[in-house]
């Protein structure tokens, strides 16, 4: 009885979860006529043309490059900054420690739209006063994205560094290393899985963001998320190519996530489970 229910319920959940994945994969190898008529479960013939043509239909390569540059820069900066902050929070007891953690976490829940309007104005005025172009530039987007992933990154790394034995850095300091030397030579190698998990998270955050990218980019700096979205909501869409592009864009992220899910899950849920 229970086994039958379990099988049925899990099958239903799996179908619901899998449906878009199936549609994405199948449609990406369909010829155009298949996606312009009523939906079919199988391609009338399997073709990889969409994977070739998609680069010409939309400036996908440019979007790809923009997203990659922004996401990689945001990832690197966010991980480095979070590593320093996480190390401070994990290894030192100082005035303002709790306030810092609470502030950082509470920024997570505020509506993005609340930051967007003033940030847009601030960027516009920085541009006017100093000539430093932040709107429609990859730099402005990078700075924005790195702070989006920062709160969770700090939180996760602080927790992860707590699990790295303190004796390690003490031993290194006895051997004459400075605290920073100990961090890089002893703590970082021991905390590598946590650091990689944070990096993947920061990359995912930047890779999929739409709200700020839709306002802070123009034709030349458009990211994948906004570019594909804009194309997919047009009237006449080559859906097989859109699906092929979506698949190409998703695969690295999903594989990275699944490979590191153990560490990410530990961090994502640490706050919820502990409190």
């Amino acid at each position, binding site marked *: 009885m*229970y086994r039958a229910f*379990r099988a049925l*319920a*899990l099958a239903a*959940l*799996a179908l619901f*979860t*899998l449906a*878009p994945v199936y*549609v*994405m994969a199948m449609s990406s190898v369909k010829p155009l006529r298949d996606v312009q*008529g*009523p*939906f079919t479960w199988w391609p009338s013939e399997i073709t990889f043309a969409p994977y070739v043509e998609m680069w010409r239909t939309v400036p996908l390569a440019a979007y790809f490059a923009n997203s990659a540059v922004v996401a990689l820069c945001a990832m690197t900066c966010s991980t*480095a900054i979070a590593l*320093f*902050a996480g190390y*401070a929070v994990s290894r030192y007891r100082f005035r303002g*420690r709790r306030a*810092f953690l609470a*502030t*950082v976490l509470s920024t997570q*829940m*505020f*509506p993005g*739209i*609340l930051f*967007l*309007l*003033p*940030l847009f*104005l601030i960027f516009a*005025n920085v541009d*006017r006063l100093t000539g430093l172009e932040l709107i429609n530039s990859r730099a402005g987007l990078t*700075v924005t994205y790195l*702070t989006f992933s920062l709160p969770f990154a700090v939180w996760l790394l602080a927790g992860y560094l707590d699990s790295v034995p303190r004796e390690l850095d003490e031993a290194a300091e006895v051997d004459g290393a400075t605290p920073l030397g100990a961090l890089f030579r002893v703590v970082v190698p021991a905390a590598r899985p946590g650091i990689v998990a944070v990096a993947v998270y920061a990359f*995912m955050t930047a890779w*999929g963001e*739409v*709200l700020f990218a839709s306002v802070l980019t123009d034709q030349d700096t458009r990211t994948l*998320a906004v570019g*594909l*979205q804009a194309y*997919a*909501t047009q009237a006449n869409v080559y859906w097989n190519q*859109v*699906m092929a592009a*979506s698949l190409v*864009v*998703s695969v690295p*992220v999903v594989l990275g996530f699944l490979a590191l*899910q153990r560490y990410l*899950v*530990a961090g*994502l*849920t640490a*706050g*919820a*489970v502990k*409190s």
Partner: protein
Amino acid sequence: MISKKRLPYLLLAPAVAAELVIHVVPMLAGLGMSLLKLTQFFLRDWTRAPFAGLGNFAVAVDVSAPVGADLLRSFCVTLLYAVLVVTGSWALGMLGAVLLRRPFPGRGALRALFLVPFALPVFTGVITWSFMLQRDTGLVNAVLDADAFWLIGGNSFASLVVVTIWRSWSFAFLTLTAGLAAVPPELHEAADVDGAGRWRRFRSVTLPQLAPVNRVLVLVLFLWTFNEFTTPYTLFGKVAPEEASVLSIHVYNASFSTWNLGLGSAMSVLLLLFLLLVSLGYLWLTSRRRRVPGV
């Protein structure tokens, strides 16, 4: 040589600077902007915009005028949307997590599969859904043998709810799975010895043990859904149908179609105030009820 006392602050400095520049300062600026008559004429030099006092707020909450009435409608849509998505995501996540608690062949594969919606970049998942929901070429009409419009009109709200649940139940599943793993197995064994059935065990052991996890999970899901922008924007494009015009989309359009950033800021401040009140009230209520043995 850096002193031991100053080192932690130096280590924190970059994080604090980034938070200040992107979060704290814009938030304060947003508060200030909501008090200004900040229309397109003052965009380049917003310090010259005239002070409007609470004028923007008065316009936003005046439900007898079109602007206020639209905002109120959008607020109601958003509230219903958030409640439905939180309930649905939590229920599905709980179901999945409980059913996958004990090992059986295929459990690992299912667990990985259930994480895919959360791992996929939001826009690719939602773009695929928008293809599935197309009237003439989509999977949904093919399965239902219908020719309904799913992305405009009354159905668009249902579409938005289902698509959002598709993504966020995966996060609920992830959190609850981790929460369940932390429940000591002895509790279930003791309930077994007492002859408790599955439903009874779920109510008397699992639910109380998960109470702290649920407390945070429900709040986080609610806040995320209430602020959700990517899903409706990707699903509907710039102009969401009236029935599915949630607040983030509404404020976005109100701000960037007319460039009245003062009014837009006032609306976001109201949104923030509402969320703060709900969060504080929720945390206060749930902390009073939290006297469960063993928690």
